[in-house]
């Protein structure tokens, strides 16, 4: 077996372009999971009991079933109801909702960790509810959550390849396409794994340092 480095150089532009697609999906999916996760957390903390219960049951169902099947579900079922989305937005939507059920737990515990005195002080100052949340509670709650949220971003990034099963040409699917043309699976798939490692390992080291700093 010989590894041809010229071949690495040859396929690199296509793999890098696909890496950008993967990063774009991860970024958009993560943004959605933050917005929706915060909403779910607030609903569970402040919503009517029935609504809070429904959010809990729904989140548990999503967390306990595979992302892969949720992707199939959205990809094959949505068109039956007249919702015709291209594959990539469908994937972003599904991965964003899936991870929102995880980020909502981080938000919930972060909000609960803000001392009750802060709520009481804000209320005794007569601040409107929106100001209490936006200017008092969330700024204090979010900082300690950053490492946990960052870990979910890295985890999500590594799950973007699942979108290849619904025809999205992200990194893994592109790698398969290239490997299928030349049958050089060793080079292409190893390089793909290396790209994932080079992006996720330094990020997780950074998060571990952040976390260690916070604890001391």
């Amino acid at each position, binding site marked *: 077996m010989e590894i041809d480095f010229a071949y690495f150089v040859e396929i690199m532009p296509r793999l890098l372009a696909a890496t950008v697609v993967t990063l774009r999906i991860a970024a958009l999916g993560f943004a959605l999971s933050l917005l929706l996760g915060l909403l779910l957390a607030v609903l569970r903390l402040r919503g009517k009991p029935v609504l809070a219960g429904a959010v809990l049951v729904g989140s548990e169902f999503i967390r306990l079933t595979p992302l892969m099947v949720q992707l199939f579900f959205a990809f094959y079922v949505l068109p039956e109801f007249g919702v015709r989305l291209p594959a990539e937005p469908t994937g972003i939507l599904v991965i964003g909702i899936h991870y929102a059920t995880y980020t909502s737990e981080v938000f919930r515990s972060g909000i609960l960790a803000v001392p009750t005195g802060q709520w009481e002080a804000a209320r005794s100052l007569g601040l409107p509810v929106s100001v209490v949340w936006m200017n008092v509670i969330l700024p204090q709650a979010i900082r300690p959550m950053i490492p946990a949220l960052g870990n979910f971003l890295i985890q999500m990034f590594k799950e*973007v390849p*699942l979108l290849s099963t619904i025809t999205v040409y992200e990194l893994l699917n592109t790698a398969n396409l290239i490997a299928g043309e030349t049958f050089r699976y060793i080079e292409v798939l190893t390089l793909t794994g290396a790209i994932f490692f080079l992006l996720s390992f330094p990020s997780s080291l950074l998060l571990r340092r952040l976390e260690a700093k916070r604890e001391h």
Partner: protein
Amino acid sequence: MDFIAEVAPVLLTGAGVSLSIGIQAGLGAIVISIVVGALRGLSNPVVRALTAIYVEFFRGTSAFVQVYWAYFVLPLLGVRLSALEAGIAVLALNVGAYGSEVVRGAINAVPKGQHEACHALGLAWWVAYWKVIVPQAMTRAIVPIGNLLVDLVKGTSLLSAITVTELAFAGRQAVQTFGHPLAIFAIVLVLYLAITAPIAWGARWLDERIRAKQFLGQQAGRV
């Protein structure tokens, strides 16, 4: 609704395959977690480096890429595994890498004084571990290990991409044959839930039971 009668056996067979993969890979992952988690606590620099490389490699590269790599690249390197064997091995190694960190963290979280006390009492190391360290570490490890096993069962669906006819694969095939994606994928999701929910809820229940028992033990000790 006639198709349900035809689809049910296909999906149930798929669920059986997923469960079987989950059990085999899960047992492998638990053994790896304990062995590697314990090894990572040793001071030998070679052991430390090798275990760190293993853990960071499997955590840093995507599980799905690992599945593909094992299926397409290993045969080219002369390692002949069936898709099923390759898939089980990757899942066990991947979840084992995460699990070993849980085990290491749980052991590290037991206060140093406990180790020192065992040493001062002249307990043999296995007695110290079995009777003192492990029971205390367990309380921290059960829920995270339960979550990892849930992730593992969810991860068995990745093997559908390398021709293993597990539940996700069976569902997709059934939709291609019979149509009705809404009903079929809904059943598939519920079948996954039937496997994962007992693991997640069982782990939480066990955790609460152990905590309650230890709390009572402490109360009794105080009296």
